[in-house]
Each structure stands twice: as structure tokens, then as C-alpha cells.
């Protein structure tokens, strides 16, 4: 067992050969365990993917096929499902609404969040801690308590300013922004604190204003944090359900998640299941693409939410 010393000293160093290996993890037991292990992992993998794969396959079927053989593979690809979903089920309009709202809300969330967090992280002023804790307190509040008054605030604001009010993209974007503030400020404050002070001070000495310093120096330096949080907020806003349900009551103004919910509720009557699944796939695609491209950052960004 001479290898032992080497191994404890350098964990990634030479591994024991098969003969030196102690007791367990060898032979039949180890093999059986490995198999069982993979069995469990594969089982959960199937449970995770099968319902989704089924939904995607169903979106390629005709309604006849779906009724007679719900579990079978599609015989061909029925593109018409997507066309029907896009136009007659109005998914196209909902998709557009979602894009408009999320574009506005994400911009505002990241900009306002970064501004607030930066000031809270890097400037000393009376009330700094108070403002910070008021933001962070929002992390624990259940959204449901706010629904009723929020509805009236939005409705009444429409009477003062016509571009606000119910069924307004901008109102919904503002609400998303407000509800994203606690976490965004919380996360970015921690992030801005880690950036070196010397650069900022050098900038000011060189005659930068505080504004230029933020936009030209600090914001670019905070890019990694901003990106993972933007991904987090994108998913949150794109998938939001309860807030648009309260604010977007006009059918033409519904966002994607909300529109899909209504479509699902009416699908039985319309007897058009495959269009529903096509709509589902359309809604799923942007998220799937973002996830595939930024897989590492998304996982890191979302789990950081719990850890920080």
C-alpha cells in the first residue's frame, strides 16, 4: 500500500490500481451497485423527459392520430398544427405580446436593479442599510397578498396616465420590474461589493463623473453578474403567469403563458389538441434555446439565487 501516502498528499495524483483497492467497490457488488445506480438515474431521466417528448411528438400528429393512438409515433409532420396554433389559436399574438413585455421589463429590471445595487454597494450614506433591507424583505412576501391592491393601483393609474392602466404592456413591465427588484438588488449588491475599489477611485481622480464611472467602468466590470441575473430574470418574466392573469384581461393583450393556459382550458371544446401542443412547443422553444446556449450560466444563475 505504498501508493497510499502519495494519494493522500496529492488527491488528484496516481490512483490505486485494481489490485490495491480495498474491500468494497470491487467485483460483483460494485458492478451491481453501479448498474442499480445508473438504473435510478436513468429512471428519473425518463420521468423528466417522457412527458415533454410526448407533448412534442403530439404536436406533429393529426387530431385523428392523437385520438386513436395517443402513445404512438407521428406518421408524418403535420405543420398545419403550428399554423393553426399561431393564427387561429392566437399564439402568434401572445408570443409578440410576451416579447414586447419581456423586452421592456428585462431592460428596466437590469438597469434599475444595477443602479440601485451599485449605489447601495459602493456609496455610504445615511439610510443605506434601511433601503437595502426594505428591498431584501420583498424576497419573503407572497405575491398573492399584493394581487388585489396591485390590480387597483394599475387600474387607477390608467385614469391618470393613459399609457398605463390595465391591458398595458408598459404597466405589466413595470409590475414585473417591481417584483424582480428584491432579488436583483440583493444579488447585484453582493456582486458590486466584490469589484475592486481602486479602479473606481482612479476613475474619479481622473475626472470621471459618478455617472460616467458607472456606465463606462463599473457596469462593464459587472458583466458576468449582470448576465447570469439577466438570464434568471428572463426566464422568470417569460414564464410569469399570475401577474399577467390579473393585469392583462383583454384577450388580445394576453402573454404567452397566460394564452396557453386559456387555450388548454378551451381545447376540449375545440377538439384541437394538436394545435395546443404545437402552441406548447412554440412557447417552449425560446426557453429551450436560451437554456441550451447558456446552460452553464443558467444553472449557475438560478442556483446562486438560493446560495447567496
Amino acid at each position: 500500500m505504498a501508493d497510499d501516502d502519495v494519494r493522500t498528499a496529492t488527491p488528484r495524483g496516481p490512483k490505486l490500481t485494481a489490485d490495491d483497492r480495498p474491500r468494497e467497490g470491487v467485483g460483483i457488488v460494485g458492478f451491481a451497485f453501479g448498474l442499480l445506480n445508473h438504473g435510478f438515474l436513468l429512471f428519473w431521466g425518463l420521468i423528466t423527459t417522457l412527458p415533454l417528448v410526448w407533448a412534442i411528438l403530439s404536436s406533429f400528429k393529426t387530431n385523428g392520430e392523437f385520438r386513436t393512438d395517443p402513445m404512438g409515433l407521428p406518421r408524418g409532420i403535420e405543420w398545419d398544427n403550428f399554423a393553426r396554433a399561431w393564427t387561429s389559436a392566437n399564439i402568434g399574438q401572445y408570443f409578440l405580446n410576451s416579447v414586447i413585455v419581456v423586452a421592456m421589463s428585462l431592460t428596466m429590471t437590469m438597469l434599475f436593479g444595477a443602479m440601485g445595487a451599485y449605489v447601495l454597494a459602493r456609496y455610504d450614506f445615511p439610510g443605506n442599510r434601511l433601503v437595502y433591507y426594505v428591498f431584501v424583505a420583498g424576497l419573503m412576501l407572497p405575491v398573492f397578498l399584493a394581487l388585489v391592491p396591485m390590480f387597483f393601483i394599475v387600474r387607477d393609474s390608467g385614469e391618470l396616465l393613459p399609457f398605463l392602466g390595465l391591458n398595458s404592456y408598459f404597466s405589466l413591465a413595470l409590475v414585473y420590474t417591481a417584483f424582480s427588484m428584491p432579488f436583483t438588488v440583493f444579488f447585484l449588491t453582493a456582486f458590486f461589493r466584490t469589484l475592486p475599489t481602486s479602479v473606481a477611485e482612479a476613475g474619479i481622480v481622473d475626472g470621471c463623473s459618478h455617472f460616467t464611472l458607472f456606465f463606462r467602468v463599473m457596469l462593464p466590470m459587472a458583466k458576468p453578474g449582470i448576465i447570469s441575473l439577466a438570464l434568471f430574470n428572463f426566464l422568470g418574466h417569460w414564464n410569469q403567469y399570475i401577474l399577467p392573469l390579473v393585469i392583462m384581461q383583454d384577450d388580445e393583450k394576453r402573454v404567452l403563458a397566460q394564452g396557453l393556459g386559456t387555450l388548454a382550458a378551451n381545447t376540449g371544446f375545440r377538439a384541437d389538441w394538436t394545435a395546443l401542443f404545437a402552441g406548447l412547443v412554440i412557447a417552449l422553444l425560446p426557453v429551450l434555446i436560451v437554456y441550451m446556449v447558456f446552460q452553464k450560466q443558467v444553472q449557475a444563475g438560478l442556483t446562486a439565487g438560493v446560495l447567496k
Partner: protein
Amino acid sequence: MTLHGSGRPAAQRSDGTDGTDDARGTGGTGETGATGKGGGVSHGADARRRRRGRRPGGPMQKGKYPFIIAFLLPPVGVYAMYMLSPYIQAIYISLTEWSGFTASPTFIGLDNYERMWNDDQLWTALRNNLILLIFVPVLTLLLGLFFASMLNVGARGRGGAVAGVFGSSVYKVVYFFPQVLSIVIVGIVFSYVFAPENAGGILNSMLGAFGLDGLKQLWLAEQNLLIWIVMVVMTWSFVGFYVVLFSAAMQSIPKDIYEAALLDGASRMTTFRKITVPLVWDTVQVGWVYMAIQAMDGFAIVHIMLGINGGVDGAGDVLGVAIYRAAFQSNDFGYAAAIGVLMLVLTMTVVVLFMRMLRREKVELA
């Protein structure tokens, strides 16, 4: 980290695992600062003290107040108007009777709360929320820890090392996917999983395929099953997230600890109980509280799968749906707000309870 000595949020996590963080050498937030200063951990404190001493009258002081105000105004304004003020108003609205059509609500004191006490449907919703609150976190936690340990320290043998199993990164990508999916899509897909066979009905078809026809049923028509189905769907959508979360924590456990345990002949179970679990306990604790908050929700799943009335005889109702129904179906805004206050109190209680429940000595890694 620089301006305020207090409240460095990352401290909560790094306290117990500072050593491992460094060993791991990932670009965690704590380190960026240290590397920026070109110093190690021990220099951090000195530098901080020096910088803080220098602050008053430093170059950053010039003209800072107009800047601070300009930068705080948009975030604070939006937050105060659309998030804070609703919460404050909600407490008042809960003491009123209001259909939303009159200009102002009528103050009725605690009548709404008394009404809640006598509302059987609300008790059902409350019971269901408690079921979700207990079972979703426990199940998610167990499955999450189980799969994460399988993925990260599952493979033993072959060279004596303890390592992740083959293909573990693929598993992580797949497991995590439900987390990025809209909960609405999850709800729709699962309403077909549990549908009768002639309307999709994946589960019944599967049972049929395995010759278990006796287990087939009209899942969503069975009162007693409703909340358990919701529980299963919520767990399904949460597990992957916790697998990834716990995986990150397990990756930071030095491999030689496992190898030492292996040499000492510790069984897999012992290794899991005595090494893995204690060393990821911090993460488990935080995840547990976070899960409790998530489990209080359930709105989208119930609303999509069971409808606004909470399914057959309202048996699958949850508080979130009850609030939405009271407000936007019955125009009973005062009552809706009162249920909201109940939910707030419940959430706060649960967070405090959950935090207490798992508190335990931290394991220090020297």
C-alpha cells in the same frame, strides 16, 4: 465588502466552506475581490480596514449625493409603487368589505377573518397547502440528495477514487430542464399525463402497457387524489433544481475525504450519512427554506390542472387559488386580501420554523 463592514451576504455560505471554496478555485464572488486586490484571505481584513479608514474625504465623496438620489429614485420608485404599497394597502383592504365598484371600501373590522374561520372551502385549501408544505420539501430534498450523491460521488471502485458517474453532466442538463420551463407548460403537460386514456392519458396507457390495468383510474376525478397529484407534479418540477444545487455543494467536498472513508472501509450508506450530508448541510438548509416558500404557491398547477374551483368539489384547492377566485371571480376584494394576510402570516411562520428545524452545528473543514 468595502464600504460596509457588516452584512456580507455571501458570508452565510462561505463560513463553513471557506477552505473548500479556495481549494476549488472557481471564480466565486468572494474571490474576485480578493484577486482584484492581489491578496489572499488574510490580507482582505487589513485592506478593508485601511480602505474604510481612508473613506471620509476620499475622491468618491465629491458630488455623490445628487448621484445617489438620481440612481436610487427609479428602482425605489417602481418598487415602492408596484410592490411595497400593495402589501401595505392589502392589510387595510383585508379589514373592509369591497366589491371594487364603489369608490372606497367599507370598514368592517375583523369580519373577514371571522368569515375565514367559518369557511369550509378555505380550510380545505389550508389543509392542502400544509400537505404541500410538508411533502414537497421532504420528497424533493430526499430525491435531490439521493440523485446528487449518485451523480457526484456515486462511482466507487475503478481505481479506488470516488467520482461522479459516467454521463453525469448530461443527467444534470436533463434533470434541470423542468426548472426553466414555464409552470403553465408543466401544468398542461401533466393534465394530459393524468387524463383518461381517450384524451391522451399517458399514465393510464403506461399502466395498461405494463399489465397494471387494475391501477388505472380517472385520476383528476378522484377527490382524494387531487392534492397528491399536485404534490407529485410540483416535486417533479423542483427535483432537478436541487440535484444541481446539491451537486455544486458536493463538488466542493475534497475528494481525499471520500478516499479516506473508503480506505477505512466505510459503507456507502455511512459515507452518505457521515460525510456527504453533513458537508452539504448549509446548502440543504438554505434550499429547504427556499422550497418552503415555493411549496406555499401551487397556484399555476392547480389553476391549470384543476381549474379555478380547485377540481372536483374544490378538493384540490390551495390558498393562492382561493385568493384569486375571491378577488377576480366573486369581486370580494376584502375577503381576498384577508386570505392574503393569512398566507403572509403562514409563510413567515413557516420560514422561521423551517430555519429552526434544520439548525445544527456547522461542520468545519480545516
